[in-house]
């Protein structure tokens, strides 16, 4: 009796059990020790260890004994018989914002048209950037929220790490239990962790406005904080830097949210000698090798995407194969971590509905995650990472009494969590399932005409059959204590198709006795039920039922079980796009025979010539070559050229413009390469082999650029063109003075100011260099470091520019500070000052025929390249456009038409000349023995509009092959078909579906001009405009 009472009264007095010493009591003191003994249980003390028939004793919120033998049950213990029950340590969620008010999000972002917010809006002695708030302390803003706590408790959690999810440096987190107690008592460890992200959150400050800006800000803050340790007088008190330094010894948790971001975060950690625990994005399985390389622990959400409604083929078309594959494979993510031996925790974060947690966890287990690992990921791993394993995470003497009582193995679909005990208090979850109500009962109705006996087959707490001569329709419910039953003595006339009890309804006695309807209610006293009720005639009756047997073999629940046949799943391809490789193409030795070979060397154009490629290099160019080791490609009638090099590109990056300030030389494109941009593959099909990824033109001194090779399928690091000089993007004119804005408040607003931005930046850099030489302890400034590199000819400029005045002004700044402007890009008035550019030795990289899309290009002419070429400049034709980059050979063809440049010289403008401008002409740009085997086999004269690239080769690897591309299209189509059918199947079988979400391709660009993209492409600057 006592035991059962306990079940129902626990919550009521739970709040009274513990009280704080310092708090006055209103009323009579009611101190209780809360001693309980849980006997006969299967106790899973930790993921590896299970005790059968064991006892657990708790007192004062702590575990005082656990074991199978020798556990003494204190006399004052309330004994709970846990026969057939399982006890587990309560779970720990390492990534929550429980009890913390959601930060108010004000969307901003850099916008070419909006006024800038240059400084922080935070009041007080804090740092300069609003997104860096390490001083935030979750412990100080935490308040218990029992409704939220309940949603955690109901799915098995007992403790969480909570923090303020806002900003790039987010301050410290605090570990709390989910007990409904005063904040003082639930807090296990304040200042338990330090949190970071790439997302500036509610900060309204203009900087940073990009991924690479966030990275640069983190980097600089590490340096600033290091410097601040000595309390430099010039800084005064900076509470942010102080807090940053204080937080360094804590576990560092980084919200990265995507596989590439994980790697980016990890690189920052390594650079500053720390280690992050990384909150992943759920797509890590797509690059698990690289993820393992970080040697970090991960926090994984079980927020798996729902199937989409793709019955409308037009909607289906908008969903990419990559997204469909991710739907199918996302549940394999935890298993991939386990297989790769990467430590990880699981979190409820990002789930739309916490109740999805167990369902999704089971999905993950179905996809290969072991139950042991799942248990660890929910208990020991997070507790250990947070340094609270001495308190929570397992069932051991001395730890908090945080545990679950279930009626079966905790991850099994049939199991129910009955109770969740936290700090020694019981929180009911689903106590009606404490007793396994299932079974056959003898039901006796004491009717006016005497006792009538039926057999009652209880299927579950919500379904039971009453069996007399026939199986009778009944309604049944059991809530752990109360029983309700109603049934008719005559079977239903016709079985409705959906009724589960239809069997047996045939052949029942139809005639004769009039139907009686009974409505019964009562309570369970252990295995015996007693109650009263009423029949249709209004007679009051009493009834009893007693347990007979555990009943017939379960047949009903098996139907819903998934057949355990191995599923056919998508393959992880590299990249994870339709056009990704299942198996990456390999380097080959190739002998290309009988082609027209455009050498770009003094040999010029060779007819009927051969090119031999070995070990990724060009081994020989000439006639009648042979090589036994090489695969022969017959290129009769075809043309072979060096691969196209695009001097000005914005593909393959996660962000391009850091427009938050006029000088952002500290940001680096290299920090945020995106090797999965489909435009890499598309441009390979246009013969491009290298691209110079530039920062945008939002500010005068933009960011550091990155030269890449189009190695489709490589990771971000392997995309880089190794050994190339560093460059940086500058910009002049309309964009940097924000001409289209009617409310510009960011200096400069005129070309006069642009020139002074340059003058000032280099003046500061000169002073900085001097100071650094004099005192190595001078605060490192990454912005100025880059400018010092320029002055020391270790970094080179490519400068967006249009009109003659600004070009000349820039040249003179170069003269003043002793460096040259390596390349002027766009440079549509370059023809007006070609002589001056030549005098400084600058290259020019321009468009073939663009003009008149804004005021500074009114004098742009299609003859620009030809004039500059004839004056003797090194002239390149670039794209600055993901579409046009696929046709740069044709753009070079236009230079033949406008100004009569020779065909060979025109081709050099997209091959050798950009190689020269980028200082890599010793490696690429021409077909010469010893250079990289980056080349293209064209179907026709490469300057002709009728030419297609048949093969594009980088490092001797055929990355684009038009024949293979045709096969790939078929594969994409059949895989799309399979997944579409599977999603439709999910919908038809009643699974949750969301409307089809088009897979938009986000394109980044300098924000300079119009682009022609597909329907499902979004330009970031379009987005900014639309947001207004």
């Amino acid at each position, binding site marked *: 009796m006592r035991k059962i009472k306990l079940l129902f009264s626990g919550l009521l007095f739970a709040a009274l059990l513990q009280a704080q010493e310092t708090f006055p009591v209103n009323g009579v003191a009611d101190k209780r020790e809360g001693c309980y003994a849980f006997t006969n249980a299967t106790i899973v003390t930790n993921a590896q260890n299970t005790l059968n028939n064991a006892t657990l004793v708790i007192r004062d919120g702590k575990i005082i004994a656990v074991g199978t033998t020798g556990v003494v049950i204190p006399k004052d213990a309330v004994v709970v018989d846990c026969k057939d029950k399982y006890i587990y340590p309560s779970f720990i969620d390492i990534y929550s914002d429980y009890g913390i008010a959601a930060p108010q999000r004000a*969307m901003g*972002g850099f*916008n070419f048209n909006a006024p800038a917010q240059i400084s922080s809006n935070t009041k007080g002695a804090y740092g300069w950037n609003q997104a860096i708030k390490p001083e935030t302390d979750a412990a100080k803003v935490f308040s218990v929220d029992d409704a939220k706590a309940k949603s955690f408790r109901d799915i098995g959690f007992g403790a969480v790490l909570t923090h303020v999810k806002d900003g790039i440096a987010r301050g410290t987190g605090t570990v709390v239990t989910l007990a409904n107690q005063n904040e003082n008592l639930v807090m296990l460890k304040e200042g338990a962790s330090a949190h970071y992200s*790439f997302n500036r959150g509610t900060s309204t400050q203009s900087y940073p*406005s990009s*991924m690479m800006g966030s990275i640069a800000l983190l980097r600089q803050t590490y340096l600033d904080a290091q410097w601040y340790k000595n309390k430099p007088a010039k800084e005064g008190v900076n509470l942010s830097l102080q807090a940053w330094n204080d937080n360094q010894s804590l576990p560092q948790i980084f919200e990265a*949210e*995507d596989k590439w*971001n994980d790697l980016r975060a990890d690189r920052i950690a390594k650079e500053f000698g720390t280690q992050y625990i990384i909150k992943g994005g*759920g797509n890590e399985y797509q690059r698990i090798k690289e993820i393992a390389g970080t040697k970090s622990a991960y926090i994984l959400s079980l927020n798996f995407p729902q199937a989409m409604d793709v019955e409308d083929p*037009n909607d289906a*078309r908008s969903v*990419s194969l*990559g997204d469909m594959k991710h739907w199918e494979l996302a549940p394999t993510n935890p298993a991939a971590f386990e297989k790769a031996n990467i430590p990880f925790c699981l979190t409820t974060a990002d789930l739309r509905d916490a109740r999805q947690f167990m369902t999704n966890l089971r999905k993950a287990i179905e996809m290969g995650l072991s139950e042991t690992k799942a248990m660890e990921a929910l208990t020991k791993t997070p507790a250990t990472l947070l340094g609270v394993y001495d308190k929570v995470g397992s069932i051991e003497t001395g730890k908090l009494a945080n545990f679950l009582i279930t009626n079966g193995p905790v991850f099994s679909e049939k199991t129910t969590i009955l109770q969740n005990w936290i700090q020694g208090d019981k929180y009911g979850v689903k106590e009606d399932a404490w007793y396994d109500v299932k079974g056959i009962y003898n039901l006796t109705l004491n009717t006016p005409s005497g006792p009538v006996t039926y057999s009652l087959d209880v299927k579950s707490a919500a379904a039971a059959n009453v069996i007399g001569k026939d199986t009778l329709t009944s309604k049944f419910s059991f809530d752990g204590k109360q029983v309700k039953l109603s049934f008719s003595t005559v079977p239903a006339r016709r079985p409705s198709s959906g009724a589960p009890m239809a069997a047996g309804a045939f052949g029942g006695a139809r005639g004769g006795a009039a139907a009686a309807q009974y409505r019964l209610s009562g309570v369970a006293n252990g295995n015996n039920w007693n109650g009263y009720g009423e029949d249709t005639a209004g007679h009051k009756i009493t009834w009893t039922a007693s347990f007979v047997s555990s009943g017939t073999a379960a047949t009903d629940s098996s139907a819903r079980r998934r057949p355990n046949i191995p599923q056919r799943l998508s393959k992880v391809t590299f990249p*994870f*796009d339709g*056009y990704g490789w299942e198996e990456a193409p390999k380097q080959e030795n190739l002998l290309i025979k009988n082609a027209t070979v455009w050498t770009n060397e003094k040999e010029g154009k060779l007819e009927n010539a051969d090119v031999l490629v070995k070990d990724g290099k060009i081994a020989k160019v000439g006639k009648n070559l042979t090589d036994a080791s090489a695969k022969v490609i017959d290129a009769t009638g075809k043309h072979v050229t060096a691969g196209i090099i695009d001097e000005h590109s914005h593909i393959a990056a996660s962000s391009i413009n850091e427009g938050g300030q006029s000088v952002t030389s500290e940001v680096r494109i290299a920090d945020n390469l*995106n090797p999965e941009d489909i435009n890499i593959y*598309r441009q390979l*099909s246009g013969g491009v082999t290298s691209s110079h990824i530039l920062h945008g033109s939002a500010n005068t001194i933009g960011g550091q650029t990155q030269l890449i090779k189009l190695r489709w399928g490589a990771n971000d690091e392997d995309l880089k063109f190794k050994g190339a000089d560093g460059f940086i993007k500058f910009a002049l004119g309309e964009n940097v003075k924000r001409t289209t804005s009617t409310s510009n408040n960011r200096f400069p607003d005129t070309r006069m100011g642009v020139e002074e931005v340059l003058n000032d930046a280099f003046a500061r850099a000169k002073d900085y260099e001097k100071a650094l030489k004099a005192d190595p302890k001078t605060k490192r400034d990454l912005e100025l470091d880059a400018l010092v590199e320029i002055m020391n000819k270790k970094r080179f400029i490519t400068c967006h520019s249009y009109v003659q005045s600004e070009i000349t002004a820039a040249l003179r700044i170069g003269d003043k500070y002793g460096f040259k402007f390596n390349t002027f890009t766009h440079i549509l008035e370059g023809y007006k000052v070609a002589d001056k550019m030549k005098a400084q030795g600058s290259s020019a990289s321009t*468009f073939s*025929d*663009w*003009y008149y*899309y*804004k*005021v500074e290009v*009114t004098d742009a002419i299609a*003859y620009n390249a030809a*004039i500059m070429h*004839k*004056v003797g400049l090194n002239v390149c034709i670039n794209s600055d456009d993901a*579409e046009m980059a696929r*046709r740069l050979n044709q753009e070079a063809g236009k230079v033949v*038409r406008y100004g009569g440049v020779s065909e060979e010289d025109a081709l050099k403008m997209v091959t050798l000349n950009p190689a020269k401008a980028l200082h890599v002409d010793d490696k690429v740009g021409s077909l010469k023995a010893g250079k990289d085997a980056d080349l293209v086999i064209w179907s026709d*004269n490469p*300057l*002709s*509009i*009728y030419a297609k690239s048949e093969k594009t080769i980088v490092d001797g690897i055929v990355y684009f092959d038009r024949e293979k*591309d045709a096969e790939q*299209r078929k594969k994409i189509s059949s895989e799309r078909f399979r997944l579409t059918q599977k999603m439709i199947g999910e919908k038809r079988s009643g699974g949750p579906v969301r409307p089809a*979400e*088009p*897979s*938009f391709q*986000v394109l980044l660009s300098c924000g300079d*001009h*119009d682009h*022609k*993209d*597909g*329907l*499902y492409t*979004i330009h*970031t600057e379009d*987005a*900014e405009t*639309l*947001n207004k």
Partner: protein
Amino acid sequence: MKKIFSTLSVLLLIAGLTKAQEVVYPAKENKGRIYITNGTVHVGNGTVLENATIEINQSKITNIGTNITAAAGATVVDAKGKHVYPGLILPATDVGLKEIGAGVRASNDFSELGEYNSNIRSITAYNTDSRVIGVLRSNGILLANIVPAGGSVSGSSTVVQLDAWNWEDAAYNMDGGLHVSMPSFINRFGGRRGGGIPPALLAQLGISFNAPADPAKAALDKVEEIKSFFRQAKAYLQEPAHENVNLKFEALRKLFDKKQKLFVHGDQVKQMLVAIDFVKEFGFDVVIVGGSESFQIADLLKANNISVILNEQHALPATEDDDIDQPYKTPAALQKAGVLFALNDGSDNARYRNLSYNAGTAATYGLTKEQALQAITLNAAKILGIADRTGSLETGKDANIVISEGDLLDMKSSTVTDAFIQGRQVSLDNKQRQLYERYKYKYSIK
């Protein structure tokens, strides 16, 4: 200013040059006969005549063939080794309405306020002195359909010839099309999967998602509203006398009398499918402008006699999984289905000068060169309702002719040497050429 101008003129004179932009004159009426001899003549309808001669009398082509002798005293243009084409037609453009798109609002007259602007006429704002026009001529584009934008019903377009003193002289087919803009059936800002750019970064970039919950429903409601406008107009026009004249409805008379076509702007499949309603319910002659997804429903377009102006070929594929060359080969898909289509050039950066290269791309990806040429000449003329006067080199048509050094569809050989509009040999000079000469002079380049 005057001083600078005169200095410039002097410089140009010294350099042995012709004239500044302002003194590039529209050509005078042709009063005699001109013979274009010995050229490879691309008729525009698929036929090629080698070594042929075209006879022009005043404004018309009066003869074409291989055994025509030039009349004594007539002008002869020797096209030996050259290619002769019909004047190219830009079928939907804002030339003359939009001078400098970015940052100079005052120079823009292409988009009007209001939702139902059937009474708006592009021609009234058309600027014959736009700097873009001379560049187009020098690339063989001699006719253009000037299209207004803004609202759901944007107004009527007029075809102009590109060598005129003012818009009344320029008009070639006045108010031939009424333009309707379809609402979008797609949420422009949806979710992203984990790969590529994650939602967190989009947030970082300041991109938020606030599109309508059901864009298809919103779009259909909008379409119903547009149709209702046409229904009311139709009813209004059945009654000759009105107490209150409704200019918007009056402006639709030509459309209902089938003297005007309905140009429906849209790229999405559903936008185009809805456009079929305009054929079925109102019996309009419908032209799709945009049509990037038209390859998916080419047979339906054909079945409903809907023609297509493909706005942009040099575009990225619509979806990540699309064939990488899909926009390049869309013309071939339409050709195969028998859809009447024309190619356009909507590039704001090169200002529409690359029309012939769009055709070249179509020829690389599935069309024959002559089919591709037809898509920027005769097909465009048919769609714009001017095929009786232009679009091909045939006797009786206007002498709208381009002569190129080589293949006009291939950039490297496409230098235009001569052009005729209605028999007038028009100037191929423009500001770009003048600046070229000016700086050749500066650097002593030959």
